[in-house]
């Protein structure tokens, strides 16, 4: 059919639009020259990236923040998803939905305002803890949605059977339901981790001097001008996040 050939050609074009910029970015991270002219293969920019103390430290910060916020958000989010699956809580569900559609910049400044208000009463400062709590706040809804999707495929009668056989509600959850939805929970955790490690807008507003994250440093370097080091870090970041996302997808589709 003629029209389907046109459609395929169009689709190829759109896929190129989506993927070529990132591929070109990655290709030039291996360029021997500092300028945008290909002068042979080199790993120099990767060496420089790993030798840059600010970069390495910010990467560790990002990792710790993502691990901590993922742990908290996944625990709270999984319990919440289970609770929402069992009974309706329209206000909580609506509020979580709202947190998902709120522009990041609004979430960021409102959290900044909250922290500054609290600091009037407590001798605290912006730092890792404020970033972690901010990340928990916006990761929560992602976890709830992912886990609830998994729960919808779970047969509730299995849990009822466990309780008929004498399990308490908590035992039924821990021994029957949780193992069954575990792939969904892990997928949700991977998703939360990805969203946390990549966030720039909210983080930059609530981070202190000792808690600069990788995206914040990448942003500053990108602002300053051309440096293939940014290409190198970008390539590593995209690869790392890509692997996590593929793993998360796989887990969500597994039955």
């Amino acid at each position, binding site marked *: 059919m003629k029209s389907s050939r046109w459609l395929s050609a169009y689709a190829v074009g759109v896929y190129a639009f989506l993927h070529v910029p*990132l591929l*070109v970015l990655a290709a030039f991270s291996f360029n021997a020259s500092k300028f945008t002219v290909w002068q042979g293969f080199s790993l120099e920019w990767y060496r420089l990236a790993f030798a840059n103390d600010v970069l390495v430290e910010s990467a560790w910060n990002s990792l710790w923040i993502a691990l901590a916020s993922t742990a908290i958000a996944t625990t*709270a989010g999984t319990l919440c998803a289970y609770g929402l699956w*069992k009974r309706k809580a329209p206000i909580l569900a609506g509020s979580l939905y709202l947190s998902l559609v*709120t522009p990041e910049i609004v979430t960021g400044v409102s959290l900044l305002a909250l922290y500054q208000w609290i600091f009037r009463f407590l001798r605290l400062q912006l730092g890792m803890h404020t970033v972690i709590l901010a990340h928990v706040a916006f990761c929560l809804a992602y976890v709830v949605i992912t886990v609830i999707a998994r729960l919808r495929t779970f047969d509730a009668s299995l849990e009822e059977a466990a309780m008929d056989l004498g399990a308490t509600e908590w035992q039924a959850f821990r021994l029957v339901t949780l193992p069954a939805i575990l792939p969904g929970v892990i997928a949700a955790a991977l998703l939360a981790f990805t969203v946390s490690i990549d966030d720039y807008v909210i983080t930059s507003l609530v981070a202190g001097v000792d808690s600069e994250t990788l995206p914040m440093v990448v942003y500053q370097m990108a602002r300053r001008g*051309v440096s293939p080091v940014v290409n190198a870090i970008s390539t590593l970041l995209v690869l790392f996040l*890509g692997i996590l996302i593929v793993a998360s997808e796989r887990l969500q589709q597994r039955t």
Partner: protein
Amino acid sequence: MNRLRTWFLAPARTLNFVFFLVPLAIILAYSLMSRGIYGGVEMPWTFESYQRLFDPLYGGILMRSFAISLLSTVLCLVLGYPLALFIARSGARRNLYLNLVMLPFWTSFLVRTYAWMFLLRDTGLINTVLLAMGVIREPLPLLYNDGAVVLGLVYGYLPFMVLPLYTTLERLDKSLFEAAADLGARPFVAFVQVMLPLSMPGIRAGSILVFISCIGAYLTPDLLGGSKTIMIGNVVQNQFTGARDWPFGAACSLVLMALVMILLKLFLRKGEDQLL
């Protein structure tokens, strides 16, 4: 029995309340207060910050944000509709093709924006290649303008358009188009009169998702736009960091938020807005 279920909800409810609803309430209060001399907020209560939104300067930024978002949404639809149709018709491979759209979406938004800086700036790839080929003598000003912002937004949010469109198109009964063709409709007529009306739910959902993402954008205009291409998101950020006019920043935030909520309410039918 019910008590345990309440406990299951408690951690998320507390976190959501303290770190989402309370901050919004504080922003609401700040938007009605006066600007402090050293930043922060002071009494008395006033509507001044909201009145400033009607200032031609800020009204202009609001209109510009609207125009940029609308243009980006239309371009996403033009690029995304045929792509969604292609994926919906590609049989066994549709999951692979869909993942190819979603994968870049989940990998670093910052990196994807930087990719365009790398391509578009004066010493970027496009200008370097064109200069080397002798097509141009001086680098084209590709970065730091409205066009670059629209490009960045379309690139960033195209998956938001494709996903709902695909979901709608995939469910359409193919025999309807065969029937239209059998009854003598030419492909174009069949498309406009049969397929387009049936895919309206996807078009509506995709457009609204892209539009609300664009209207709240901060990073894209910040990195790809020039000093003149600021959008509401940048005004908000600037009031809280540079200008230190918190009440006005808070008022802008709330207007942005209200805009998003009204648009969602208007354009999403019941059920479509229930992710949970």
